[in-house]
């Protein structure tokens, strides 16, 4: 589509006008640094990711198994009760095919797209899971409801981070029968 026909008239500012100082601007880069305390819930979550496991927190009143875990149930307004391991498999809740990088630069034609997805993790309550990226899949083959599995970094490369999972990839075999496998994690 030709975007140029929607552009307004007038004299355009060129990049050179800015670099030559014909247009007065001031560039500042903030130097702000943070180190957030993960807290009890997210601290344990990250630690378990480092072990190749996905852990949730259960509220025994409403029965929700919450992922990411939290130390209090915001609906029941009480402390949550127990740690529960989940599977490292799940279902695509929603996804997007991103043709742009985080800084809005375009991904060159022919290079892989970014494939962020919300994944409902098996063992967690409905609507709860992990925001991650999909991989080892053609973009046009991705479907909502598709079964996926975590691909983990090697144990000695993990650092207790959400990126200890490199991506989720489709579970190809036994689409209908696959119910549950024992023991989350690798």
């Amino acid at each position, binding site marked *: 589509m030709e975007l140029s026909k929607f552009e307004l008239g007038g004299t355009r500012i060129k990049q050179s006008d800015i670099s030559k100082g014909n247009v007065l601007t001031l560039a500042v880069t903030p130097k702000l640094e943070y180190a*957030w305390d993960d807290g009890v819930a997210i601290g344990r979550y990250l630690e378990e990711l480092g072990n190749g496991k996905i852990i949730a927190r259960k509220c025994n009143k409403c029965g929700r198994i919450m992922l990411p875990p939290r130390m209090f149930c915001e609906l029941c307004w009480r402390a949550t009760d127990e740690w529960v391991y989940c599977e490292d498999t799940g279902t695509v809740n929603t996804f997007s095919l991103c043709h742009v990088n985080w800084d809005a630069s375009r991904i060159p034609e022919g290079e892989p797209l970014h494939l962020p997805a919300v994944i409902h993790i098996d063992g967690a309550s409905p609507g709860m899971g992990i925001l991650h990226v999909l991989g080892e899949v053609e973009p046009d083959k991705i479907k909502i409801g598709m079964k996926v599995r975590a691909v983990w970094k090697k144990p000695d490369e993990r650092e207790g981070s959400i990126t200890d999972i490199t991506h989720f990839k489709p579970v190809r075999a036994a689409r209908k029968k696959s119910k549950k496998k024992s023991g989350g994690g690798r």
Partner: protein
Amino acid sequence: MIGKVAITGLGYTEFSATSPGTSFRELTYEAAVKAYNEVGIEPKDIDTFVCTSEDFCEGYSISDEYCNDQVGGILKPVQTITGDAIHSLATGVMLVLTGGFDIVVVQALSKLSNMKTVPNLVNFALDPVLNRPLDEHYSFVSGLGMNRFLHDGKATREQCAQVVVKNRANALSNPVAAYGADLTVDNVLDSEPVSLPVRLLDLAQVADGAIVFVLASEKVTGSLTDNPIWIKGVGWSSDSPSLESRDWGNSVATRLAGDMAYKMAGVRYPAKEIDLAEVTDEVSYKELEHIEALRLFEPGRAGLALEDGRTTSEGDLPVNVSGGDLGVGHLFEAAGAQKVMELVLQLRGTAGSRQVADAHKGLAQVWRGEPTTSAAVAVLANQ
């Protein structure tokens, strides 16, 4: 004031230089649970929530989106004030006075230990075109203010140091204060020069902590508590942001915010009617500047009143019995909440070893800190 609004429930955490192992959510949750338990309510009983949050302090943009879970505000009307917690308190008061909300929660949090470059954060508040290119440490603004204050004969350098000695000592009687210390005037005057006349010990140090209040309309207050603390008046104001043309050595915003709160509260003679005050002492001299602006002492007499012991916890008008920002810790946007919290404890008669005798009416003032000229005031009473 039309109608009455009370603080019924209060919850707070300890204030400390760091709070490792506890997330900002977990910190606020602790304060919220304590506040709601005091008055036997749950989030379902609360009509609306006012949180306090400043993106650059939290390290999130649109940080208000992250405020609701930990106060029980999920699926409820929540709003966030990017000002001080006393601005949030004033908003809570107005919400009750609309008649549409009987129980309103006001939340404040400081997790400043997670902000690793506080000088840059504050420097980033300076005018980017005219001020920031000069590349000064932000404490220069305090130096400019104090120098003019001293030059105008408002107080002596020693009196400013005495503010530090008094407040850090007061904090020793406050079990949740972070920076209690037994200092001398000479300790302060001999401390490292920062931006003279300001020295290291003149400056408050940052702290973490969370505070939650349960506000209630007169109609439901009786069902929540036998010991309500009434919010008699609130006020807020801002002077010029311009460092070039503000009224140095005078807190005009505090004067205007105080007068607004006094008018609402029906206070005609502040010096006689106010039993105790908690004011911002983020820089030592500011306590003296603020209590003068609030008409608690005659112009130029605040320092003498301090010397005479009138503002100690045994004096006739105790100031910063809690320890103030110097003794409790500087809580950034939660700073005003700590001042209101101290008044609630004092006016309830539950302040323990630092209880002020015959405390019936108190004043909390907050200044938003360098480089601002914004202030907010609340007048509270136990009857």
